Every structure is written in structure tokens, then in C-alpha cells.
């Protein structure tokens, strides 16, 4: 018979057929734009001007990589990421230990802890901005009534960083908790019983029985949160807008301002590509550990 339709419906092409529509949409809305901006990064181009693009070679990559401001923004981002992810790991781990056992009303109480990570960054940013407000904010009030001194948390560099870290860690500690909980639940009962028979101390039991079951998940939590916090934008935008000065400006906020306030289109494209590279490396690492964990299971 031949013809287009039978050719298309051939079982050999079934996989490709099913996948194509999704890939096409991703290509048009994501991969093509990325290729475009890759192209732009080699040209002199300003989105706000009508001048046609002029070839620039690697000029913008050199410019971005040798710019001390870029490195400062990377440092700021790294500081926020490491402080926040570390806090999330510690608090999330503690929460998981608390909720690891069955107890009455567990599901309802767990709700209270899990909700923050489902909230919007903008809403959370607004909450915390209100709490930090120097005159009538709750946090400032509590600090004042304990120490007797006024507090304007967002007025100093480290205060503002702390403000962002607290909000972000509050949102995402439940994420770490969920992963650790999954590990804790998967520890087989007989191992605990064996530990009981061997009269292991709680610390020994944790080290020998519990930890092997959660270490893989802890690593996944660490990587996942690092990738996600690396792109931190909304919280910074709402809580500090990068201030005071530019001391809390994360790399994502910096690219945003470069692209949409100063219209340095080529430069922001070049910097975007450096970010993309970092994320690809981290995502690869994450999937490597996901697959390793699945093979072990």
C-alpha cells in the first residue's frame, strides 16, 4: 500500500511518534531560544537599540570572565547557597528524626511542616519582609524586647544575607526532611532488632543501621537543593532587591538586571551560558547518584 499514514504508524516508529510532540514544544520554547542566545553571545547586540548585530567573537566571554563584579556575584550566590543548604540539611534532618515514628495525628501535624515548600517564593518573600520590618515587624520586635536594641536586619550585608537564608531554609528544610524520612522508613525492622540484641548504643545503632540507609538520600538532597538554590531569584528580588548596595545580589538577579535594566543583551547571554554549564555539570552528578541508588536498590 505505502503512503504516509501507514509509514507513520509503523511499530518501529512508535517510540519516536509518542515523544516527538513533547520534544517539538521543548525545542521551540527552550532549546531554540537557548541556541539563539548562544549566537547572540558572539555578537555586539543590544535589545533596546535598532543597530544590527556585529560579530564580536569571544569578546563577551572574556569580558564576563575577567569582570570582578561577576566573581563577586558568584561569591554572594555561593555564600547564600552554602549557608542555606547547610541549614536546610541540619533542620531537615532533625525534623525527620522527630517525625520518623508513628504517632497519633502524625499526618495532620506533618502538614504544618510540609506546607512551606509548596508556597510561592513571592508570598514567602512578602511574609519575611513584613517580619523583618524594623518598626512593627515581629522578628524585630522580639529581638528588641530581648536585647533592648533596635534591629534593622536588612540594613547590613550579613543581616540581609541572614534574612534571605532564613526564609529560604524555612521553605526548603521540609524537602530534606521528606528525603531523609524516606530513608528512615526503608530501614528493615530486623536490623533494629539485631541492634537491640547486640545491645548497641543509640549512636552505634545510628551509625551502623540507620545512616547507610539515608546517606544516599542525603547526598541527593544536597545536590538537588544546591542546583535549586543556585538559581535563587524571587526571594532576593522581593526581600532585599539585591541590597544593601549590591551585597545580596545573586547571580540570577544580576543577569536579570544586566539583561532587562541595562539591556546588555550579549553580555547577559554569555554569562547565561556559563550558568548553564554549571547547572549541566550539577544535574549530571545528581542523575549519576540517582541511578547508582536505583541500581543498589
Amino acid at each position, binding site marked *: 500500500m505505502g503512503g504516509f499514514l501507514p509509514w507513520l504508524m509503523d511499530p518501529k516508529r512508535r517510540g519516536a*511518534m509518542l515523544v516527538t510532540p*513533547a520534544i517539538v*514544544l521543548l525545542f521551540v520554547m*527552550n532549546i531554540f531560544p537557548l541556541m539563539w542566545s548562544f549566537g547572540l553571545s558572539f555578537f555586539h547586540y543590544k535589545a533596546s537599540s535598532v543597530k544590527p548585530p556585529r560579530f564580536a567573537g569571544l569578546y563577551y566571554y572574556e569580558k564576563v570572565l575577567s569582570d570582578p563584579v561577576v566573581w563577586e556575584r558568584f561569591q554572594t550566590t555561593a555564600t547564600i547557597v552554602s549557608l542555606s543548604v547547610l541549614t536546610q540539611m541540619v533542620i531537615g534532618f532533625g525534623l525527620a528524626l522527630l517525625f520518623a515514628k508513628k504517632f*497519633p495525628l502524625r499526618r495532620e501535624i506533618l*502538614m504544618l511542616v510540609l*506546607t512551606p515548600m509548596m508556597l510561592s517564593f513571592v508570598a514567602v518573600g512578602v511574609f519575611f519582609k513584613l517580619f523583618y520590618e524594623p518598626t512593627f515587624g515581629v522578628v524585630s520586635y522580639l529581638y528588641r524586647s530581648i536585647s533592648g536594641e533596635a534591629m534593622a536586619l536588612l540594613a547590613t550585608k550579613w543581616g540581609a544575607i541572614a534574612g534571605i537564608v532564613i526564609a529560604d531554609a524555612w521553605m526548603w528544610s521540609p524537602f530534606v526532611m521528606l528525603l531523609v524520612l524516606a530513608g528512615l522508613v526503608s530501614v528493615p525492622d530486623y536490623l533494629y532488632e539485631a541492634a537491640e540484641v547486640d545491645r548497641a548504643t543509640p549512636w552505634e545503632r545510628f551509625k551502623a543501621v540507620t545512616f547507610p540507609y539515608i546517606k544516599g538520600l542525603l547526598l541527593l538532597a544536597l545536590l538537588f537543593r544546591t542546583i535549586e538554590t543556585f*538559581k535563587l531569584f*524571587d526571594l532576593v528580588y522581593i526581600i532585599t532587591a539585591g541590597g544593601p548596595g549590591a551585597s545580596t545580589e545573586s547571580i540570577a538577579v544580576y543577569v536579570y538586571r544586566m*539583561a532587562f535594566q541595562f539591556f546588555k543583551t550579549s553580555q547577559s547571554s554569555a554569562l547565561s551560558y556559563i550558568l548553564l554549564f554549571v547547572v549541566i555539570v550539577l544535574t549530571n552528578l545528581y542523575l549519576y547518584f540517582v541511578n547508582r541508588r536505583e541500581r543498589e536498590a
Partner: protein
Amino acid sequence: MFASRSKSRSVREAGWGRTAICGLVGLIYFSPVLWMVLTAFKTRQDALATPPKLFFTPTLDNFVSVFYRVTESGAQFSTGMSLFFFNSIFIAGMGVLLALILGTMASYGFSRYPLKGNDTYLFVILTTRMLPPIVVIVPIFLMFRITGLSGSYVGIILLYAMFNMAFSVWMMKSFFDELSKDVEDAARLDGAGEFKVFFRICLPQLKAGLAATAVFALILTWNEFLFALLLTGNDTRTVPVAMARAMGGQLGVDWGLLSAIITLFLVPVFIVTYMLQNHLLRGVTFGTVKN
């Protein structure tokens, strides 16, 4: 024998004592949300009082003025907020629907008919979700400006379909991978066609998974800010953008009003989180970690 059994249970179970401790911790953890909700019921004076008021006479004024305000001459005017709420629902709904249809098809393909380089495709798809949105947004902004999609429903819906595609594919693939293929093969032996296998055998088993994926994607989209900030116009603005704009007001922020908007904005999220609890782990890790 009995003693050891009751002890082994005690490793897994705790009583009301643990309920009390966890309840307290939970309440403290949740208190920022509670405070925001309380603020929504305060008058302007109460919201700005020092020391902050825990007890006050509640008012619904803020909720009314989210949607309507009265000018000094007594005329009522709409704030446009109902349109923004509609936009948030409509745009998220359409974007998620599109992503879910295409994503479920694709995930079925990836799971049942692996292509050459299947893992590479899946990796590229996941990367589109992991990369900072700011990386893609510059060219998308230019693309939308040229095609005139900027500020239109079609543009932002397509964008959100893309935004949810990786999530839908990975989530649904994790559900498909868990299904036993024996049932499908048995149906094929009985002469069922491919469409029948997919719609009659696979999908009915995945109702819960499909619902979880849909609802999760809806929340992610409902909360999204950066794309909406740059690519929606006055008529297509979503609630997060409206909230951010309310923060930047010239006459000082009306915290009661803002809290009321947030409270309304959060209600669906609470309900959904409660329903989704068993799928939360899979959802937040895009299907890469399962219980």
C-alpha cells in the same frame, strides 16, 4: 519472645508524648503562615501596631478591598484583582493540560519504546527544568517581541507548557516504570490494539499518578513568578506579579491588604498539599526519588 516483639514495635511507634512535641514544633514551624493569615484580618492600625498585636477585633475589610475599593466620593471601583486570579487559574490550567497530554504520551514512549539515546533525551529534558529560568528568558523575551506573543495568553500558556514538560515527563515516566508490563502483554495477546492498551489498561491504573502530576504542576505554575513578570501584560497579569507590584507601591505597603491577597492565594495550595501528601516526595524531586 513477647518482650522483644513489643520492643521492636517501640522502635517504630511513639505515643501521645511525641504528638505533643511534634505538634509544638509544627506550630512554631507554621507560625509565619499563621501570622500572615492573622494580619489579613487586621485593620490598618492593628497591622502596624507596636508591639505587634496577637489579639484584636477581626475585620473582613481587607478581603473586600482586594477586589473592590471605594473612592472618597463614594464610588466603587474594581481593583482588577479578580482578573488576575482568573488569569492565574486559566493560564496555569491550560499550560498544565497541554504539558500533561504531551508529557504523558512522551513518558509512555520513553518507558515502553526506548529510543536510541533514550537517557540522553531524558537528560536534556530534565536540564530544561533545572537550568535557571533567567538563562532562557532573554531570547524568549526577544522571540515573543518579534512574534507579538508578549503579553498574550497563547505565549505564556505555551511557555508554561514548556516549563511543566520536564516535570510531567519525569513524573509520569516514574509511574509508568512501576506498572507491570505483564498485564499489557496479556491484553496484546488477546488482540487489543495499542490505543486500547494505552487508554484501557495503562491509564486507568495511573489515575492517582496522573492526578498527582497534574495538581503538582498546577501549584508550580500557580507560584511561578519570573516568566510571568517579564512576559505578561496588563490583561494577562498573574497574582504573584500583582503581589510583587503591590510591594513596590509609592505610598507605603498596605500589609493588611497584601496579607489578604496572599491568604486567598494560599488556600488552594493548602488543600492540595494535604491531598498530595503521599506523592509529595516524588513530586518535589521531579519523579527521580520514589518512596
